[in-house]
Protein backbone atom coordinates (compact mmCIF):
# COMPACT_ATOMS: atom_id res chain seq x y z
CA UNK A 1 0.00 0.00 0.00
CA UNK A 2 1.24 3.47 -0.81
CA UNK A 3 2.05 5.22 2.43
CA UNK A 4 1.88 8.99 2.46
CA UNK A 5 2.79 8.94 6.13
CA UNK A 6 6.29 7.73 5.28
CA UNK A 7 6.75 10.64 2.93
CA UNK A 8 5.42 13.14 5.47
CA UNK A 9 7.63 11.76 8.24
CA UNK A 10 10.83 11.92 6.22
CA UNK A 11 10.16 14.95 4.07
CA UNK A 12 11.91 17.54 6.30
CA UNK A 13 15.15 15.53 6.36
CA UNK A 14 14.98 14.97 2.62
CA UNK A 15 14.34 18.63 2.00
CA UNK A 16 17.25 19.73 4.17
CA UNK A 17 19.59 17.54 2.13
CA UNK A 18 18.50 19.55 -0.92
CA UNK A 19 20.90 22.29 0.18
CA UNK A 20 23.83 20.16 -0.97
CA UNK A 21 22.13 19.56 -4.29
CA UNK A 22 21.64 23.30 -4.66
CA UNK A 23 25.15 24.12 -3.46
CA UNK A 24 26.77 21.78 -5.95
CA UNK A 25 24.56 22.95 -8.82
CA UNK A 26 25.01 26.66 -8.17
CA UNK A 27 28.76 26.52 -7.55
CA UNK A 28 29.17 24.16 -10.49
CA UNK A 29 27.26 26.55 -12.72
CA UNK A 30 29.39 29.54 -11.73
CA UNK A 31 32.60 27.60 -12.19
CA UNK A 32 31.28 26.31 -15.49
CA UNK A 33 30.40 29.80 -16.71
CA UNK A 34 33.76 31.34 -15.81
CA UNK A 35 35.81 28.45 -17.14
CA UNK A 36 33.46 28.07 -20.10
CA UNK A 37 34.08 31.69 -21.08
CA UNK A 38 37.83 31.07 -20.94
CA UNK A 39 37.57 27.92 -23.05
CA UNK A 40 35.29 29.67 -25.48
CA UNK A 41 37.88 32.44 -25.83
CA UNK A 42 40.44 29.72 -26.52
CA UNK A 43 38.21 28.11 -29.13
CA UNK A 44 37.84 31.45 -30.94
CA UNK A 45 41.49 32.41 -30.55
CA UNK A 46 43.70 33.06 -33.55
CA UNK A 47 46.38 30.74 -32.16
CA UNK A 48 46.06 27.20 -33.44
CA UNK A 49 47.38 25.47 -30.32
CA UNK A 50 44.81 27.28 -28.14
CA UNK A 51 42.03 26.15 -30.47
CA UNK A 52 43.34 22.59 -30.35
CA UNK A 53 43.40 22.54 -26.54
CA UNK A 54 39.90 23.98 -26.30
CA UNK A 55 38.58 21.40 -28.80
CA UNK A 56 40.27 18.56 -26.92
CA UNK A 57 38.87 19.77 -23.62
CA UNK A 58 35.31 20.00 -24.92
CA UNK A 59 35.53 16.65 -26.67
CA UNK A 60 36.87 14.91 -23.57
CA UNK A 61 34.46 16.32 -21.02
CA UNK A 62 31.47 15.83 -23.28
CA UNK A 63 32.60 12.36 -24.33
CA UNK A 64 33.19 10.80 -20.93
CA UNK A 65 30.27 10.04 -18.60
CA UNK A 66 30.13 12.33 -15.57
CA UNK A 67 30.01 9.33 -13.25
CA UNK A 68 33.42 8.24 -14.54
CA UNK A 69 34.77 11.78 -14.28
CA UNK A 70 33.64 11.95 -10.66
CA UNK A 71 35.26 8.65 -9.75
CA UNK A 72 38.41 9.64 -11.62
CA UNK A 73 38.67 12.90 -9.66
CA UNK A 74 37.90 11.15 -6.42
CA UNK A 75 40.54 8.46 -6.87
CA UNK A 76 43.10 10.39 -8.93
CA UNK A 77 43.55 13.55 -6.89
CA UNK A 78 44.92 11.73 -3.80
CA UNK A 79 47.30 9.76 -6.02
CA UNK A 80 48.94 12.94 -7.27
CA UNK A 81 49.11 14.22 -3.72
CA UNK A 82 46.06 16.48 -3.55
CA UNK A 83 43.84 15.61 -0.63
CA UNK A 84 40.60 17.55 -0.87
CA UNK A 85 37.25 16.84 0.74
CA UNK A 86 34.78 14.91 -1.42
CA UNK A 87 32.57 17.99 -1.70
CA UNK A 88 35.36 20.05 -3.27
CA UNK A 89 36.22 17.27 -5.71
CA UNK A 90 32.56 16.94 -6.64
CA UNK A 91 31.99 20.65 -7.22
CA UNK A 92 35.22 20.88 -9.19
CA UNK A 93 34.33 17.98 -11.47
CA UNK A 94 30.74 19.02 -12.03
CA UNK A 95 32.02 22.51 -12.88
CA UNK A 96 34.68 21.21 -15.28
CA UNK A 97 32.05 19.18 -17.07
CA UNK A 98 29.59 22.07 -17.20
CA UNK A 99 32.34 24.32 -18.59
CA UNK A 100 32.62 22.12 -21.68
CA UNK A 101 28.92 22.39 -22.43
CA UNK A 102 28.66 26.07 -21.52
CA UNK A 103 31.65 27.02 -23.68
CA UNK A 104 29.77 25.58 -26.66
CA UNK A 105 26.64 27.50 -25.67
CA UNK A 106 28.66 30.71 -25.44
CA UNK A 107 30.38 30.03 -28.75
CA UNK A 108 27.00 29.59 -30.41
CA UNK A 109 25.64 32.83 -29.03
CA UNK A 110 28.83 34.78 -29.78
CA UNK A 111 28.40 33.79 -33.40
CA UNK A 112 25.00 35.47 -33.31
CA UNK A 113 26.47 38.87 -32.39
CA UNK A 114 27.11 40.99 -35.48
CA UNK A 115 30.83 41.19 -36.27
CA UNK A 116 30.57 44.97 -36.64
CA UNK A 117 30.16 45.42 -32.89
CA UNK A 118 33.56 43.97 -32.01
CA UNK A 119 35.10 45.89 -34.90
CA UNK A 120 33.46 49.14 -33.81
CA UNK A 121 34.65 48.63 -30.24
CA UNK A 122 38.18 47.96 -31.47
CA UNK A 123 37.98 51.00 -33.74
CA UNK A 124 37.19 53.37 -30.87
CA UNK A 125 40.23 51.99 -29.08
CA UNK A 126 38.93 49.42 -26.62
CA UNK A 127 41.49 46.86 -25.57
CA UNK A 128 40.78 43.29 -26.71
CA UNK A 129 39.97 42.27 -23.15
CA UNK A 130 37.49 45.13 -22.76
CA UNK A 131 35.83 44.19 -26.03
CA UNK A 132 35.47 40.67 -24.68
CA UNK A 133 34.26 41.55 -21.18
CA UNK A 134 32.12 44.62 -21.91
CA UNK A 135 30.75 44.05 -25.38
CA UNK A 136 30.74 40.38 -26.33
CA UNK A 137 30.24 38.40 -23.11
CA UNK A 138 27.22 40.29 -21.73
CA UNK A 139 25.41 39.90 -25.02
CA UNK A 140 26.42 36.26 -25.36
CA UNK A 141 25.03 35.59 -21.89
CA UNK A 142 21.72 37.17 -22.82
CA UNK A 143 21.41 35.38 -26.15
CA UNK A 144 22.46 32.10 -24.59
CA UNK A 145 20.22 32.45 -21.52
CA UNK A 146 17.68 29.77 -22.50
CA UNK A 147 20.48 27.29 -23.16
CA UNK A 148 22.26 28.28 -19.94
CA UNK A 149 19.09 27.74 -17.90
CA UNK A 150 18.76 24.39 -19.64
CA UNK A 151 22.30 23.57 -18.60
CA UNK A 152 21.58 24.55 -15.00
CA UNK A 153 18.63 22.14 -14.94
CA UNK A 154 20.88 19.41 -16.30
CA UNK A 155 23.36 20.28 -13.55
CA UNK A 156 20.76 19.87 -10.82
CA UNK A 157 20.00 16.42 -12.17
CA UNK A 158 23.66 15.59 -12.65
CA UNK A 159 24.29 16.44 -9.00
CA UNK A 160 22.46 13.22 -8.11
CA UNK A 161 25.56 11.37 -9.32
CA UNK A 162 27.78 12.81 -6.59
CA UNK A 163 26.27 10.17 -4.30
CA UNK A 164 29.10 7.93 -5.54
CA UNK A 165 31.67 10.03 -3.72
CA UNK A 166 29.61 9.97 -0.57
CA UNK A 167 28.02 13.40 -0.35
CA UNK A 168 24.65 13.28 1.35
CA UNK A 169 22.48 15.23 -1.05
CA UNK A 170 18.89 14.37 -1.95
CA UNK A 171 19.58 11.08 -3.71
CA UNK A 172 22.00 9.75 -1.12
CA UNK A 173 19.69 10.81 1.68
CA UNK A 174 16.74 9.08 0.04
CA UNK A 175 18.86 5.95 -0.33
CA UNK A 176 19.51 5.82 3.39
CA UNK A 177 15.92 6.63 4.31
CA UNK A 178 14.66 3.99 1.86
CA UNK A 179 17.01 1.44 3.39
CA UNK A 180 15.88 2.33 6.90
CA UNK A 181 12.12 2.43 6.27
CA UNK A 182 11.79 -0.25 3.57
CA UNK A 183 9.59 2.19 1.60
CA UNK A 184 11.74 2.84 -1.50
CA UNK A 185 8.82 3.70 -3.79
CA UNK A 186 7.48 6.51 -1.62
CA UNK A 187 10.89 7.91 -0.70
CA UNK A 188 12.33 7.92 -4.21
CA UNK A 189 9.14 9.43 -5.62
CA UNK A 190 9.34 12.15 -2.97
CA UNK A 191 12.97 12.77 -3.97
CA UNK A 192 11.93 12.92 -7.62
CA UNK A 193 9.30 15.54 -6.82
CA UNK A 194 11.80 17.69 -4.93
CA UNK A 195 14.05 17.66 -8.00
CA UNK A 196 11.06 18.42 -10.18
CA UNK A 197 10.09 21.36 -7.97
CA UNK A 198 13.63 22.78 -8.05
CA UNK A 199 13.79 22.47 -11.82
CA UNK A 200 10.37 24.00 -12.40
CA UNK A 201 11.41 26.99 -10.26
CA UNK A 202 14.66 27.35 -12.24
CA UNK A 203 12.82 27.11 -15.55
CA UNK A 204 10.30 29.75 -14.44
CA UNK A 205 13.06 32.04 -13.13
CA UNK A 206 14.79 31.67 -16.49
CA UNK A 207 11.66 32.74 -18.34
CA UNK A 208 11.22 35.78 -16.09
CA UNK A 209 14.88 36.71 -16.47
CA UNK A 210 14.62 36.34 -20.23
CA UNK A 211 11.83 38.91 -20.33
CA UNK A 212 13.50 41.30 -17.90
CA UNK A 213 17.07 41.21 -19.14
CA UNK A 214 18.05 44.04 -21.44
CA UNK A 215 21.67 44.31 -22.35
Amino acid sequence: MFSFQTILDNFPVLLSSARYTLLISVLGCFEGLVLGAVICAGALSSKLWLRRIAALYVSFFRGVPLLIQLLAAYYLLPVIGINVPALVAAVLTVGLCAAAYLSEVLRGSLNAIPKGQAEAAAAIGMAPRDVWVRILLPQALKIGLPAIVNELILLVKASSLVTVVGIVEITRMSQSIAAATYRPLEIYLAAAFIYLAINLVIAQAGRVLERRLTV
Partner: protein
Amino acid sequence: MMETLHRYGPDLLTGFGLTLLSWALGTLLGLVLGFVIEIARRFGHNLLGYPIRAYVEFIRGTPFLVQLFVLYYGGPLIGLRLDALPAGILGLTIYGSAYFTEILRAGFDAVPLGQIEAARAIGFRNTTIVSRIMVPVMMVSALPSLVNFAIILTKETVILSMITVPEIMFQTQTMMSETFAFVTPILILALFFWGFVETISRFGRRLERRFTHYLLDRS
Protein backbone atom coordinates in the same frame (compact mmCIF):
# COMPACT_ATOMS: atom_id res chain seq x y z
CA MET B 1 49.00 -6.23 -15.61
CA MET B 2 48.68 -9.08 -18.15
CA GLU B 3 47.53 -11.36 -15.37
CA THR B 4 44.86 -8.91 -14.29
CA LEU B 5 43.70 -8.60 -17.87
CA HIS B 6 43.58 -12.37 -18.18
CA ARG B 7 41.60 -12.66 -14.99
CA TYR B 8 39.12 -9.87 -15.66
CA GLY B 9 39.13 -9.75 -19.46
CA PRO B 10 36.06 -11.96 -19.99
CA ASP B 11 34.04 -10.05 -17.39
CA LEU B 12 34.99 -6.74 -18.94
CA LEU B 13 33.99 -8.03 -22.37
CA THR B 14 30.56 -9.19 -21.21
CA GLY B 15 30.24 -5.87 -19.42
CA PHE B 16 30.99 -4.08 -22.66
CA GLY B 17 28.40 -6.28 -24.41
CA LEU B 18 25.76 -5.34 -21.86
CA THR B 19 26.61 -1.66 -22.19
CA LEU B 20 26.14 -1.88 -25.95
CA LEU B 21 22.97 -3.95 -25.59
CA SER B 22 21.32 -1.66 -23.06
CA TRP B 23 22.28 1.40 -25.08
CA ALA B 24 21.01 -0.03 -28.39
CA LEU B 25 17.76 -1.37 -26.94
CA GLY B 26 17.17 1.70 -24.78
CA THR B 27 17.67 4.06 -27.72
CA LEU B 28 15.59 2.01 -30.15
CA LEU B 29 12.68 1.37 -27.77
CA GLY B 30 12.87 4.95 -26.51
CA LEU B 31 12.62 6.21 -30.06
CA VAL B 32 9.65 3.94 -30.78
CA LEU B 33 7.87 4.92 -27.56
CA GLY B 34 8.62 8.59 -28.17
CA PHE B 35 7.25 8.27 -31.70
CA VAL B 36 4.06 6.58 -30.47
CA ILE B 37 3.56 9.28 -27.83
CA GLU B 38 4.08 12.04 -30.38
CA ILE B 39 1.65 10.45 -32.85
CA ALA B 40 -0.89 10.04 -30.05
CA ARG B 41 -0.48 13.70 -29.13
CA ARG B 42 -0.79 14.82 -32.74
CA PHE B 43 -3.65 12.63 -33.96
CA GLY B 44 -5.29 11.54 -30.71
CA HIS B 45 -7.93 13.20 -28.55
CA ASN B 46 -7.12 16.69 -27.27
CA LEU B 47 -7.34 15.52 -23.66
CA LEU B 48 -4.34 13.26 -24.24
CA GLY B 49 -2.17 16.35 -24.30
CA TYR B 50 -2.26 16.89 -20.52
CA PRO B 51 -1.05 13.49 -19.29
CA ILE B 52 1.59 13.44 -22.01
CA ARG B 53 2.80 16.88 -20.97
CA ALA B 54 2.95 15.80 -17.31
CA TYR B 55 4.86 12.66 -18.30
CA VAL B 56 7.43 14.59 -20.30
CA GLU B 57 7.88 17.24 -17.59
CA PHE B 58 8.28 14.61 -14.88
CA ILE B 59 10.84 12.56 -16.78
CA ARG B 60 12.82 15.58 -17.93
CA GLY B 61 12.68 17.27 -14.53
CA THR B 62 14.01 14.40 -12.43
CA PRO B 63 17.45 12.74 -12.43
CA PHE B 64 17.79 9.48 -14.32
CA LEU B 65 19.34 7.88 -11.25
CA VAL B 66 16.27 8.64 -9.15
CA GLN B 67 13.99 7.30 -11.89
CA LEU B 68 15.97 4.06 -11.88
CA PHE B 69 15.69 3.80 -8.11
CA VAL B 70 11.92 4.32 -8.27
CA LEU B 71 11.62 1.68 -10.97
CA TYR B 72 13.97 -0.92 -9.55
CA TYR B 73 13.57 -0.56 -5.80
CA GLY B 74 10.09 0.96 -5.73
CA GLY B 75 8.58 -1.14 -8.51
CA PRO B 76 8.16 -4.33 -6.44
CA LEU B 77 5.88 -2.45 -4.03
CA ILE B 78 3.34 -2.08 -6.83
CA GLY B 79 3.98 -5.55 -8.22
CA LEU B 80 6.52 -4.55 -10.87
CA ARG B 81 9.29 -7.04 -10.19
CA LEU B 82 12.10 -6.73 -12.71
CA ASP B 83 15.65 -8.00 -12.86
CA ALA B 84 18.34 -5.34 -12.96
CA LEU B 85 18.99 -5.48 -16.69
CA PRO B 86 15.35 -5.32 -17.88
CA ALA B 87 14.72 -2.58 -15.30
CA GLY B 88 17.72 -0.67 -16.65
CA ILE B 89 16.61 -1.01 -20.25
CA LEU B 90 13.05 -0.03 -19.35
CA GLY B 91 14.45 2.96 -17.45
CA LEU B 92 16.50 4.06 -20.47
CA THR B 93 13.45 3.57 -22.70
CA ILE B 94 11.22 5.72 -20.53
CA TYR B 95 13.90 8.38 -20.04
CA GLY B 96 14.68 8.46 -23.75
CA SER B 97 11.06 8.53 -24.85
CA ALA B 98 10.38 11.82 -23.06
CA TYR B 99 13.27 13.55 -24.82
CA PHE B 100 12.72 11.85 -28.17
CA THR B 101 9.06 12.82 -28.21
CA GLU B 102 10.01 16.49 -27.74
CA ILE B 103 12.61 16.30 -30.51
CA LEU B 104 10.10 14.64 -32.82
CA ARG B 105 7.51 17.27 -31.95
CA ALA B 106 9.82 20.07 -33.00
CA GLY B 107 10.72 18.10 -36.14
CA PHE B 108 7.10 17.49 -37.13
CA ASP B 109 6.25 21.14 -36.44
CA ALA B 110 8.87 22.10 -39.02
CA VAL B 111 7.18 20.09 -41.78
CA PRO B 112 5.46 22.62 -44.08
CA LEU B 113 1.69 22.36 -43.64
CA GLY B 114 1.19 22.71 -47.39
CA GLN B 115 2.89 19.40 -48.03
CA ILE B 116 0.57 17.61 -45.63
CA GLU B 117 -2.50 19.35 -47.09
CA ALA B 118 -1.36 18.48 -50.61
CA ALA B 119 -0.95 14.82 -49.62
CA ARG B 120 -4.40 14.84 -48.05
CA ALA B 121 -5.87 16.53 -51.12
CA ILE B 122 -4.66 13.77 -53.41
CA GLY B 123 -6.16 11.21 -51.05
CA PHE B 124 -3.28 9.94 -48.90
CA ARG B 125 -4.36 8.15 -45.75
CA ASN B 126 -3.07 9.41 -42.38
CA THR B 127 -0.63 6.49 -42.07
CA THR B 128 0.75 7.17 -45.54
CA ILE B 129 1.07 10.89 -44.81
CA VAL B 130 3.10 10.08 -41.70
CA SER B 131 5.34 7.48 -43.30
CA ARG B 132 5.86 9.04 -46.75
CA ILE B 133 5.70 12.78 -46.07
CA MET B 134 6.10 13.71 -42.42
CA VAL B 135 8.84 11.30 -41.33
CA PRO B 136 11.25 11.87 -44.25
CA VAL B 137 10.88 15.65 -44.09
CA MET B 138 11.08 15.70 -40.29
CA MET B 139 14.28 13.65 -40.36
CA VAL B 140 16.16 16.45 -42.10
CA SER B 141 15.73 18.88 -39.23
CA ALA B 142 15.47 16.46 -36.32
CA LEU B 143 18.28 14.03 -37.08
CA PRO B 144 21.12 16.04 -35.48
CA SER B 145 19.15 16.31 -32.23
CA LEU B 146 18.20 12.63 -32.35
CA VAL B 147 21.83 11.60 -32.79
CA ASN B 148 22.84 14.03 -30.07
CA PHE B 149 20.44 12.44 -27.65
CA ALA B 150 21.50 8.93 -28.63
CA ILE B 151 25.02 10.03 -27.65
CA ILE B 152 23.78 11.37 -24.32
CA LEU B 153 22.15 7.99 -23.71
CA THR B 154 25.48 6.16 -24.15
CA LYS B 155 26.74 8.09 -21.17
CA GLU B 156 23.60 7.42 -19.14
CA THR B 157 24.17 3.67 -19.45
CA VAL B 158 26.94 3.83 -16.82
CA ILE B 159 24.29 4.86 -14.29
CA LEU B 160 22.76 1.40 -14.70
CA SER B 161 25.72 0.15 -12.67
CA MET B 162 24.11 1.73 -9.61
CA ILE B 163 21.18 -0.69 -9.77
CA THR B 164 23.70 -3.54 -10.19
CA VAL B 165 23.42 -4.09 -13.93
CA PRO B 166 26.76 -5.83 -14.63
CA GLU B 167 27.76 -3.54 -17.51
CA ILE B 168 31.24 -2.15 -18.14
CA MET B 169 31.20 0.37 -15.30
CA PHE B 170 30.02 -2.25 -12.81
CA GLN B 171 32.67 -4.73 -13.95
CA THR B 172 35.39 -2.11 -13.74
CA GLN B 173 34.33 -1.16 -10.23
CA THR B 174 34.38 -4.83 -9.20
CA MET B 175 37.85 -5.13 -10.64
CA MET B 176 38.99 -1.97 -8.85
CA SER B 177 37.71 -3.09 -5.48
CA GLU B 178 39.36 -6.50 -5.84
CA THR B 179 42.73 -5.40 -7.19
CA PHE B 180 42.98 -2.04 -5.41
CA ALA B 181 44.15 -0.51 -8.67
CA PHE B 182 42.05 2.59 -9.27
CA VAL B 183 43.83 4.94 -11.59
CA THR B 184 44.49 2.84 -14.69
CA PRO B 185 41.08 1.15 -14.94
CA ILE B 186 39.16 4.36 -14.58
CA LEU B 187 41.35 6.16 -17.11
CA ILE B 188 40.92 3.28 -19.56
CA LEU B 189 37.18 3.41 -18.99
CA ALA B 190 37.21 7.15 -19.69
CA LEU B 191 39.18 6.65 -22.90
CA PHE B 192 36.88 3.82 -23.91
CA PHE B 193 33.78 5.99 -23.60
CA TRP B 194 35.45 8.85 -25.35
CA GLY B 195 36.11 6.55 -28.32
CA PHE B 196 32.61 5.10 -28.17
CA VAL B 197 31.00 8.54 -28.24
CA GLU B 198 33.27 9.80 -31.03
CA THR B 199 32.41 6.73 -33.12
CA ILE B 200 28.70 7.30 -32.77
CA SER B 201 28.96 10.97 -33.61
CA ARG B 202 30.97 10.12 -36.77
CA PHE B 203 28.30 7.61 -37.70
CA GLY B 204 25.62 10.21 -36.96
CA ARG B 205 27.20 12.69 -39.36
CA ARG B 206 27.23 10.02 -42.07
CA LEU B 207 23.57 9.34 -41.42
CA GLU B 208 22.83 13.06 -41.62
CA ARG B 209 24.48 13.29 -45.01
CA ARG B 210 22.32 10.44 -46.26
CA PHE B 211 19.09 12.01 -45.13
CA THR B 212 19.94 15.45 -46.48
CA HIS B 213 21.47 14.13 -49.68
CA TYR B 214 18.61 15.32 -51.85
CA LEU B 215 18.96 18.86 -50.51
CA LEU B 216 22.57 19.14 -51.59
CA ASP B 217 22.52 17.43 -54.96
CA ARG B 218 20.22 19.71 -56.90
CA SER B 219 22.02 22.98 -56.76
